């Protein structure tokens, strides 16, 4: 191997890379928040009595889950402006992540909602609770607690997906890495280290979520 390794550009760029990590986490958090909102909204519409709304949600979920994220974000960034909707790179990334995560969140949360015993709903209504309260406290809250692990994995996945947002120049770790790489041409060193940084980030996120899950979310074992 007549290639000389040189990690100096990476070491010099470490502060920028760490800031990039923060950018990644910010995109992931905002994207996940939007995804959960879309998820809950989608679940409500999915069981609506209006057929059109039901099919809209089904169509949305199938479309998003069967097209690549890169194409989705290109569409939002390059194509939507021609239809009058122009968004900066970071909002584009957040919306793309939110929409993409939302499609999966709809399915995850729906699974949780369907696992709630119908008897509980009937009991709540029998006790005179308003339909909205029944949905909020008897259906949604326990469902979210039950599917928290799945949502947590989805969040880790979203964190990793942020790297694709570099294609529209959004601010996150991969964009910073690409800049360092194009200045130094040390492709293997830069991307190798950045890959490990993602691994560490994913590991930290997973452990934080597991901690939250065991302390606050999971029901005590019977």
């Amino acid at each position, binding site marked *: 191997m007549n290639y000389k390794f040189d990690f100096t550009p990476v070491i010099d760029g470490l502060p920028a890379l760490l800031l990039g990590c923060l950018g990644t986490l910010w995109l992931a958090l905002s994207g996940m928040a939007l995804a959960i909102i879309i998820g809950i909204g989608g679940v409500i519409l999915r069981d609506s009595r209006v057929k059109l709304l039901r099919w809209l949600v089904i169509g949305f979920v199938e479309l998003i889950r069967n*097209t690549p994220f890169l194409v989705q974000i290109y569409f939002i960034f390059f*194509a939507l402006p021609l239809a009058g909707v122009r968004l900066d790179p970071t909002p584009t990334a957040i919306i793309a992540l939110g929409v993409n995560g939302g499609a999966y969140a709809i399915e995850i949360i729906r699974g949780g909602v369907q696992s709630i015993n119908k008897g509980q709903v009937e009991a709540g209504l029998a006790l005179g609770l308003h339909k909205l309260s029944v949905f909020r406290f008897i259906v949604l809250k326990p469902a979210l607690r039950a599917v928290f692990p799945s949502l947590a994995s989805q969040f880790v996945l979203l964190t990793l997906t942020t790297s694709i947002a570099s294609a529209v120049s959004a601010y996150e770790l991969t964009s910073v890495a690409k800049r360092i790489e194009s200045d130094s041409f040390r492709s293997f060193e830069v991307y190798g280290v950045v890959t490990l940084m993602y691994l560490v980030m994913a590991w930290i996120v997973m452990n934080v979520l597991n901690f939250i899950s065991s302390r606050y979310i999971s029901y005590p074992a019977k």
Partner: protein
Amino acid sequence: MGEGELLFLLKGFKWTVVLAAVSFLCGTVTGLAIALLRTSGYRAVERTTAAYIALFQGTPLLMQLFVVYYALALYGLEIDAWIAVAIGFTLHASAYLGEIWRGSIEAVPRGQVEAAKALSLHYFWRMKDIVLPQALRISLPATIGFLVQLIKGTSLAAFVGFTELTRAGTMVSNQIFKPLLVFGIVGMMYFALCWPLSFFGSRLESKFAAATR
């Protein structure tokens, strides 16, 4: 959009299909090896394989592609760019499929394995005739789901200059300046490829669920 542009997109589509197919097939072979190593019973082997799987599941596919693409070149071999990309996707697939199949191997009832051992069936035959057929059947919906993920993942090969469907779309859109139309068509092409697979997978899933009821 003229005929020439549409043909260019279709050519990119062809490469997407080829890349996904090759990576999936090679990934099943290596993935099976990973799954078997992961359930071998030898702690050190299981731990190493678990680390390998965690590496690929805890890092972005884009980074995996970049690292493999540039790492392979370091060894000085003259590998075609698209083979380097295929190797990257194969490794990615092997980790995910390995994990899926590990789960389904462990889901096969223990009693069957113990019975096979009691009948002094050799590991090879135990796996081939008893465990794997059931495990692979259980894993079919998840495996198909991953195939869809892989097809979508091939869009990232655009970043290393490989002209698959997404990159073809960017290039056409840059020549005729109609991104709405071009990316709309590109999206539809991916949908046409992925949705039937997803639909088939979810049908299988409900069939299996019905069987266990």
